């Protein structure tokens, strides 16, 4: 028990207090301690990336082995990961390929001409889903929903240049509609966001204290 619970808890308390106190100690020793601790943390981060890669490949390997629904997509994960790793590791021996007017490595070519278009395409589909969802669900069923609808329309319109032309044409001043959008963002939006941020900050402080004092132990595993 002492190795599984007490010592890890003492390490967490000690490191946590050191990390907390260095903010208030401007001595060079304190700065070098933070430097050393963060260096170790970065090294651990590198290993965590390897662990993440193993976990991802293991999950997709299991899906393929069990022939689960959509297992063919998992094969693409392997093709992409192994292919990009191979051209990355052996880029010197593979040489360069022509990209426009320049010569680039095969790894960079794969990133520029496969990854970027695929990722941008998937994300751009969001515009279609958002428009369709807005049409089907954005309804003024009651006063609150009506207010939300009006605010959304003002902000959506006020953010595009066309609003300045329409504002001048209808109201005689180019900035009336954009300023209405800005006022919604500057006051109601800001107030709501600040409330949420304060709530999150208080939650983080209480959770940090629980971890430092050994009340929260779920990160140690074992179910408690």
């Amino acid at each position, binding site marked *: 028990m002492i190795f599984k619970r007490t010592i890890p808890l003492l390490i967490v308390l000690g490191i946590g207090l050191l990390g907390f106190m260095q903010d208030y100690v401007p001595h060079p020793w304190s*700065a070098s301690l*933070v*430097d050393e601790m*963060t*260096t170790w*943390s*970065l090294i651990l*981060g*590198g290993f*965590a*990336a390897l662990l993440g890669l193993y976990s991802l490949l293991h999950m997709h390997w299991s899906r393929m082995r069990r022939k689960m629904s959509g297992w063919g997509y998992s094969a693409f994960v392997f093709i992409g990961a192994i292919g990009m790793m191979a051209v990355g590791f052996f880029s010197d021996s593979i040489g360069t390929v022509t990209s426009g007017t320049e010569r680039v490595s095969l790894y*960079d070519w794969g*990133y*520029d001409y496969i*990854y*970027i278009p695929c*990722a*941008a395409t*998937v*994300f*751009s589909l969001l*515009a*279609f889903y*958002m*428009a*369709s969802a*807005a*049409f*089907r669900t*954005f*309804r*003024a*069923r009651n006063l609150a929903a009506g207010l939300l*609808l009006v605010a*959304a*329309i003002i902000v*959506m*319109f006020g*953010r*595009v*240049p*066309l609003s*300045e*032309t329409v504002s001048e044409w209808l109201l005689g001043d*180019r*900035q009336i509609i*954009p300023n209405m959008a*800005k006022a919604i*963002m*500057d006051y109601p*939006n*800001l107030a709501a*966001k*600040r409330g949420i*941020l304060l709530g999150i900050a208080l939650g983080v402080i209480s959770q940090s204290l629980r971890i430092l004092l050994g009340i929260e132990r779920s990160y140690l595993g074992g179910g408690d």
Partner: protein
Amino acid sequence: MSQIRNLPKHYELARRIIYVLIALAVILPYFFNPKQEFKPAIEVENIYKKIESIKPGGHVLISIDYDPASEAELYPMTLAIMRHCFKKGVIPVVMTPWPASVGIARLGCDEAANDANTMFQKKMVSGKDYVFLGFRPGFSQLILKMVNNLKGSFDKDYYGQPTQGMKALEGVNSLKEIDLLVDIAAVGSVEVWIAYGADKAGIPMAAGTTAVMTPDLYPFYQSNQLMGFLGGLRGAADYEKLLKISGRGERGMLAQSATHVLIILLILGANIRLFFGRFFAGGKGASR
């Protein structure tokens, strides 16, 4: 997916018509592209003025915290800020804490450096006029380390040149010597940069985010933890306008205007249908 399949037939048809209209609203404006007049936002102007005030040889650290999925919104603002730095002779120090962002950051550096040659007749050399530090893992820990030791966090740049003794990093040993920190982000990294980077190092910070994330930045702007921000493609267009350069942001404004207006019309149309449906059904009809 099953919910979409179970939609009434007229909704299924409406969905397809909406998809076609959105595609046309996005694509067609790029064929016409008339000049649009608009006033840049004050939040954007603050960043422009700050970079204008930095002496040639000063440093702007740009953290690329987005992957190619957000390229359409965030890449134009990356280019705009880098072009401004090159125009002013300020040294952009580009880095990323995300492995998927390395390629897009490299492209940004290359494109902005090439543009400087054609736009300002300046030949930009990596390691002298700008530096691309590449990727390091650890994120918040990396930022904490950079506050005290930037060159220790990145001992070599992306191209393998040692940062120790690099001309572009002359006088910069830590984040404290950076004149402006700019985080261009599609993830919740702005708060982390504020808490662990800008506030600890005591340097001014600005941010550029996707439009959907921009509302989150207002509390930090009001508390002066952010001296300015660029919100979505409009932010990039505002910056290009201030820079008097026609870029992707400005070119995308007509498409954005058309799409926003179309969505507003769709919402209004659906609500008018709901209202009249209720009216003719005695307040009970048109529930969907």
